[in-house]
């Protein structure tokens, strides 16, 4: 049901050249599905210099606000893709979430307990804006965007994938060396290949009402268990851009979706929640249920599944689209390395290994949240309500309150690409961890200096005091089989040959990485830690680089 003032664009269908040419073209990369994850994948390919065709069966952006909450990590990925700033300017940043039981606040959390990060913990933005901004970037970079091009069949060969594509003017064949399937939860490609999906569906139904209104609620996530205005169920409130608010009402498993969607019924629920006579306008209404499940393997020969096509979770915790961006981030550099002959194809199996590990973590957390929010049995509800009662006074119970464990990037603890620690470190920047941001002198951010290639970070107090052998090692790494850039993270300024110096004036970065002068981190192109040591050893760095790229 659409009542929104958002002017939905209609993208023009253009006749694909293949319809007029007899021979079948083989493209390096085809992406199927122009949702936020598919467009991000296409942008990433272009940034890596690959020509890319993006096929979509529709001709507009997301209908309805749908995916709403974007985590700090997704914003960092969007920054790297070149559309983060627009997203952050339009969206509503927030860090605080409050949880209420009946009419009392029992718990609140802050996603950014420490200052010194470029991006906020979370940002709310309607999915149609996100897609609009990503598409502008994709066009700027020359992605071959094809609207109303529907994949009708897919067949796999050892060195390519062949598609039959339907358009308003007929069908054409096209081939890809590599295919990225970003065609959503119902993925037609997954179905055509009859790939099995493991997991289960939840019976509970939820109602989304997006309403436009003037309201003074702060930009926070508010979650109610059993509130007086919606007894025995939960309610979630979020602020979006343009003075639009998202209200998500739990309905239970017996609800009739058609009845619930009627505007008069939705308005009655919203009115009860607002508790006053203020004006509001319904802009989008939807009734949904959800599934927690994933593909067994995200790689199927030359086809790589990303986003909802590969895995689905309940919405509690915003682990859907956010994990899709991490998929793209993980896949991009690996595909580039394999296509350039810099790594064997097995590197793409590590995409599946790392991202199925992440999907399992997301499914586990979102299933736990769902079980807490909608208890399946009488005894589960007794425990749940007992936790909420105790939470009003006791810290241990507050930590058990689970209204959604919000998306943070997965630490690839078990990845075969990691080189295990031989030295002792405190903190959480373990091999496989997503690298933490921190402020640099002059107003810059560490996160903006990381990514896109393998990088060696060498910590120092004073760059002048570093080992005189280092510049030769930096030069060797820059010229190696896996070209690696060297960065000095120093407490004060100073030049070192073969490396760029970044100044950690506050010491925050040094502390977040539990670094001391001489500490070395090897960073992957997706800003995850590959290895770390207390002192530089070129042979060890080379061996870690080989491991992280599946060379032996």
């Amino acid at each position, binding site marked *: 049901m659409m009542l929104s003032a958002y002017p939905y664009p209609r993208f023009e269908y253009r006749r694909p050249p293949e319809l007029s040419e007899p021979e079948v073209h083989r493209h390096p990369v085809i992406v199927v599905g122009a949702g936020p994850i598919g467009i991000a994948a296409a942008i990433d390919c272009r940034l890596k210099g690959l020509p890319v065709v993006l096929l979509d069966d529709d001709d507009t952006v997301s209908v309805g606000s749908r995916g709403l909450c974007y985590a700090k990590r997704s914003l960092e990925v969007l920054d790297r893709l070149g559309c983060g700033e627009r997203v952050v300017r339009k969206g509503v940043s927030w860090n605080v979430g409050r949880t209420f039981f009946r009419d009392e606040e029992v718990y609140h959390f802050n996603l950014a307990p420490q200052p010194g990060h470029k991006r906020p913990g979370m940002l709310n933005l309607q999915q149609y804006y996100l897609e609009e901004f990503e598409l502008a970037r994709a066009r700027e970079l020359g992605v071959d965007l094809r609207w109303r091009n529907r994949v009708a069949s897919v067949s796999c060969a050892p060195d390519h994938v062949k598609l039959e594509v339907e358009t308003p003017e007929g069908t054409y064949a096209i081939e890809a060396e590599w295919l990225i399937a970003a065609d959503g939860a119902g993925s037609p490609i997954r179905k055509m290949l009859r790939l099995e999906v493991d997991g289960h569906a939840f019976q509970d139904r939820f109602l989304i009402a997006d309403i436009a209104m003037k309201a003074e609620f702060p930009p926070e996530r508010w979650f109610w268990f059993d509130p007086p205005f919606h007894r025995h169920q939960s309610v979630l409130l979020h602020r979006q851009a343009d003075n639009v608010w998202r209200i998500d009402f739990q309905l239970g498993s017996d609800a009739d979706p058609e009845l619930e969607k009627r505007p008069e019924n939705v308005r009655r629920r919203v009115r009860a929640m607002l508790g006053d006579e203020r004006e509001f306008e319904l802009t989008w209404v939807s009734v949904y249920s959800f599934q927690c499940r994933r593909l067994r393997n995200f790689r199927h020969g030359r086809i790589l599944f990303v986003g909802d096509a590969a895995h689905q979770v309940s919405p509690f915790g915003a682990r859907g689209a956010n994990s899709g961006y991490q998929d793209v981030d993980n896949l991009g550099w690996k595909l580039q390395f394999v296509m350039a002959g810099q790594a064997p194809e097995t590197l793409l199996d590590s995409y599946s290994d790392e991202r199925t590990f992440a999907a399992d973590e997301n499914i586990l*957390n979102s299933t*736990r949240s769902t*079980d*807490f929010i909608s208890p399946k*049995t*009488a*005894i*589960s509800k007794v*425990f749940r309500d007992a*936790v909420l*009662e*105790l939470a009003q006074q*006791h*810290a*241990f119970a507050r*930590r*058990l309150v*689970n209204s959604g*464990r919000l998306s*943070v990037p997965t*630490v690839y*603890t078990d990845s075969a690409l990691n080189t295990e620690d031989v030295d002792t470190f405190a903190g*959480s920047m373990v091999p496989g*961890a997503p690298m933490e941001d921190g402020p640099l002198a002059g107003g810059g951010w560490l996160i903006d200096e990381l990514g896109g290639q393998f990088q060696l970070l060498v910590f120092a107090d004073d760059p002048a005091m570093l080992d005189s052998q280092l510049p030769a090692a930096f030069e060797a790494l820059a010229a190696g089989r896996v070209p690696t850039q060297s960065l000095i993270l120093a407490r004060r300024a100073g030049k070192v040959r073969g490396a760029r110096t970044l100044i950690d004036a506050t010491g925050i970065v040094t502390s977040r990485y539990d670094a001391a002068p001489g500490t070395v981190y090897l960073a992957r192109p997706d800003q995850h830690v590959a290895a770390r040591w207390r002192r530089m050893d070129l042979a060890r760095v080379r061996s870690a680089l080989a491991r992280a790229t599946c060379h032996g």
Partner: protein
Amino acid sequence: MPLKLEPNFREPGKRYFHDFTPGDDFYELLVDTHRGLSDEQSAQVNAKLILLLANHIGDIAVLREAMRIARSGV
């Protein structure tokens, strides 16, 4: 030793990246323990569980305090 009311769940040998994880591990275990039981069976399991844990704690002053908090407001 007074009754602990700060978060206290953990499993030896396990590394946690998020403060909520050990509590969520416990809570899932608790709900799983009751899976497939009737209400009456669940009440039996709860009673045994309380007796086992009470004996493990041992300190009757601590148990008295826990019982007082559990009963208040019910």
